[in-house]
């Protein structure tokens, strides 16, 4: 009888000693890693501060420097420069540490926003960015599920709407996103009641009724096959959770090391002078580093493939099906967007018994260069776009109506103005005269357009 009792005692002791759950173990690991990071940063800070203070002839008492604010600023700047190499600290962050941060439970969660644009002709034209709607689920943000313009109603759909979320318990934004990353690759929309110019359906621009507006029902389905520009994606964990999280941790920890003990006769502001200086040095560094991470993610390459259909609701037999590849990426100071579309349109202009098919390739591309940052308006750039597009018909000889290939080249300058507005000036060169009907000034194959309405903001008091 002694043996089972002894075993029971051992079991109880083991249960007491062992972590009660993997989550607790993960939390302990995380705390240990954070403690190691704290120690490494503290040692480096103190060593660098000692060295730089001595080199500058300033004394260090209670982790505060003596001397003028300018002298202190120079020393702290040099100290922070010494601490810029973080490579050996970052290796401490294990995959388990990252996952533990992501999986930590939250008590409430906000709905994600929808940026869906319908890919049918009613609401968008080429070139179009490859991003998918960020609708989390049908129930997550119902107010943005449906959008409408003057005549059309668009319902945005996401494959995520058809899967259940991970658990009723709520998790971090990253956990919610990363638990259904595959489903997030699929998106689509359905538009009812759109009124679309015939040219947008057939692609034929040289017909007398090219601008006739027709009632249509449209749908599209898109799948993202390469990349993910969403910073919540797991592919960016090393940049967001590891690197970005470390930058925030480093800033807070270093600031917490600065002495603030008042010396006799000092005010609170005087005692906090060093901390205020260090904060003023850390803030722009953090902002710059985080902005670089965000920009890198936003400008990463992304490729989506889309299928779309447009069906006339008041004219039998007229349907259009399109298959499109959408690509965009950042290259240096420029953004590149390229689309390739193949479309098949059933045309019944000669009667339902003489239906014929128009098959066409539509190619388009645009390079937007962001120039002269801060030169005209702080924080904004002069954007210069160069682009072009072409519609190339297949097997035109078999078509019962004339079908001419069309092309256009364009350049646009977007000049920023104070108050948030922009002055766009564009020029277009095309072999399709119908593409110039909306230009302000046309001569031959060239059209010029401009909009100076944003300039009025310059004369608004306080702008």
């Amino acid at each position, binding site marked *: 009888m002694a043996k089972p009792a002894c075993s029971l005692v051992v079991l109880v002791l083991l249960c007491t000693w062992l972590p009660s759950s993997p989550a607790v173990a993960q939390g302990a690991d995380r705390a240990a890693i954070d403690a190691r*990071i704290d120690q490494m940063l503290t040692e480096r800070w103190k060593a660098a501060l000692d060295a730089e203070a001595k080199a500058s002839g300033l004394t260090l008492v209670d982790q505060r420097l003596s001397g003028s604010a300018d002298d202190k600023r120079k020393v702290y700047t040099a100290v922070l420069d010494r601490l810029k190499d973080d490579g050996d600290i970052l290796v401490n962050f294990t995959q388990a540490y990252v996952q533990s941060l992501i999986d930590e439970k939250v*008590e409430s969660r906000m709905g994600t926003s929808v940026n869906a644009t319908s890919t049918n002709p009613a609401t968008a034209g080429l070139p179009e960015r490859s991003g998918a709607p960020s609708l989390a689920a049908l129930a997550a943000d119902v107010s943005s599920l449906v959008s409408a313009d003057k005549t059309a109603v668009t319902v945005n759909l996401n494959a995520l709407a058809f899967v259940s979320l991970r658990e009723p318990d709520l998790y971090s934004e990253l956990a919610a996103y990363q638990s259904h990353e595959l489903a997030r690759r699929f998106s689509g929309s359905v538009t009812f009641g759109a009124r679309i110019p015939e040219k947008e359906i057939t692609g034929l621009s040289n017909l007398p009724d090219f601008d006739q507006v027709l009632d249509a029902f449209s749908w599209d389905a898109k799948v993202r096959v390469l990349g993910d520009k969403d910073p919540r994606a797991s592919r960016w964990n090393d940049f967001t*959770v590891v690197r970005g999280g470390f930058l925030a*941790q480093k800033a807070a920890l270093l600031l917490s090391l600065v002495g603030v003990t008042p010396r006799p006769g000092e*005010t609170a502001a005087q005692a906090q002078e060093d901390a205020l200086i260090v904060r003023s040095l850390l*803030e722009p560094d*953090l902002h710059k580093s*985080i902005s670089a991470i965000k920009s890198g993610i936003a400008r990463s390459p992304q490729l989506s493939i889309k299928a779309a259909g447009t069906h006339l609701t008041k004219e039998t037999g007229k349907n259009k099906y399109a298959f499109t590849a959408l690509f965009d990426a950042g290259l240096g100071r420029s953004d590149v967007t390229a689309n390739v579309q193949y479309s098949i349109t059933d045309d019944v202009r000669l009667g339902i018994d003489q239906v014929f098919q128009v098959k066409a390739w539509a190619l388009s591309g645009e390079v937007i260069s962001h120039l002269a940052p801060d030169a005209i308006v702080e924080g904004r750039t002069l954007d210069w776009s160069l682009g072009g597009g072409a519609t190339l018909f297949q097997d035109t000889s078999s078509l019962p109506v004339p079908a001419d290939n069309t092309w256009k080249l364009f350049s646009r300058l977007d000049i920023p103005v104070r108050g948030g507005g922009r002055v766009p000036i564009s020029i277009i060169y095309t072999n399709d005269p119908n593409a110039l009907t909306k230009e302000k000034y046309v001569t031959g194959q060239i059209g010029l357009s401009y909009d100076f309405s944003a300039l009025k903001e310059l004369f608004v008091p306080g702008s």
Partner: protein
Amino acid sequence: MAAKKKGKSAKRAAEDTGPAAAPIIVVPPGGQLDVVVDVGPMVFPYTVAYAGHTVIKSLVDRQEQVTPQPGDFVLAWSFAHGAKGWSHQISYILDGAEPVVLEEASEKKKNRDTSIGFAVVRA
């Protein structure tokens, strides 16, 4: 990590010690100081550190107790945002009293998406 305290409305920090100075949190002997962080969607973990130690590093709402050291030490925080609809609020609770807001910011209010702040804990 303790459960987040709910049901109390936060009020502005009342112990601001001047235009250039950070607030001073005076903790009486044996007093309990808690830091409370409420965040919206986050992609970069935020950190709260006190006297050279990370108190909270997280992507979600947290409340943690700070063990004050005798003397004046810095309680610092750092937030960086990259998700749509971001927001954060950091407060402290002294001996179970009403939370006092140290900093709050949000995309809605068009605040800068990174921030570093501090208060002085006097014990």
